[in-house]
């Protein structure tokens, strides 16, 4: 029973009905961009993977609250950005030391690629970490993920 060619809204409608396979297709489709956003936001692959898991599970739990199936992806990005900001806030509370020292442990999960990356990309990655978390989120959403950052989440009843 393949659902690989179905559009997002159809898969979301089915997932809302309890169709786990349809939801799995959505996870397959969006796990890479979600992980990419989380890694760049948190600069830590382990934390990023944890957040991706939480966001997808949270979205599954709250699917019934989503009023517009076509808003699922925007909702997912919004949840991811908020969750990442919460993680950063929690780090800040936990560390209670200089933000620059505590917040951004340099952990590159792909050393082989890091070697290949040119100076400009490295400079951009470094510059990203100089932004505030909110600024970084806005920039990543708009320029890397092609999303228009909003201050409100897509319509949901919850």
């Amino acid at each position, binding site marked *: 029973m393949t659902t690989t060619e179905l559009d997002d809204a159809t898969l979301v409608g089915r997932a809302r009905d309890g169709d786990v396979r349809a939801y799995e297709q959505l996870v397959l489709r969006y796990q*890479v961009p979600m992980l990419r956003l989380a890694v760049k936001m948190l600069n830590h692959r382990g934390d990023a993977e944890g957040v991706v898991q939480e966001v997808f599970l949270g979205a599954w739990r709250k699917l019934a609250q989503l009023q517009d199936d076509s808003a699922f992806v925007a909702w997912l990005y919004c949840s991811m950005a908020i969750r990442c900001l919460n993680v950063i806030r929690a780090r800040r509370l936990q560390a209670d030391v200089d933000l620059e020292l505590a917040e951004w442990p340099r952990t590159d999960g792909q050393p082989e690629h890091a070697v290949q990356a040119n100076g400009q990309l490295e400079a951009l990655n470094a510059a990203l970490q100089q932004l505030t978390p909110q600024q970084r989120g806005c920039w990543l959403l708009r320029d890397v993920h092609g999303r228009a950052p909003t201050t409100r989440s897509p319509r949901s009843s919850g």
Partner: protein
Amino acid sequence: MAVNETGTDYELPCGRIWTLWDRLDSADEHEATGPHCATARESLLALRAATAELVAEPEAVPPGLLGRIMSAVRAEARRGQMLDLLPPEPGRAEVSEAAVAVVLRYAADSAGDVRACRCRVRTVGVAPGGRGIVEVELTLAVRLGNVDGAETLARVRERVTAAAAARVGLTLAKLDLLVEDVYEDGE
């Protein structure tokens, strides 16, 4: 980029910074050759190139991530009510509404030119011999340009009814088909 937490104004002495980013590919003479604009434009082009690299940068997804997510999802699967299959043999057999819905949606998809969306299944009785009787409401999206809508829906009805009996062992007392959306090829 023109984001700064201190609110510092990035405007160039010539006052053009905000138009540069939008017109990187169509700079006028001033933007291309002016001492301030040309320098800023060069930096923005470098930023755009680096951004493109960042977008294209491969993101290795750990092989177990999907499995971990789906394990957690399955643990909280919404299976809906259980429908009693009432097998003729001793013992009990039940199937979840969600499982029945998957089968019926697949049957509808196989009719062509439609995509099944929501599927509600409700038990309304038991037929002689023990087979469960259900009512189903199936929401559909129809392919835009489909010229034989009535035939398509008749095909859906036929396949869903057959699948309910042959694949799940249920009798359809009523099947409501609701066309709620359309889609285009490749969508």
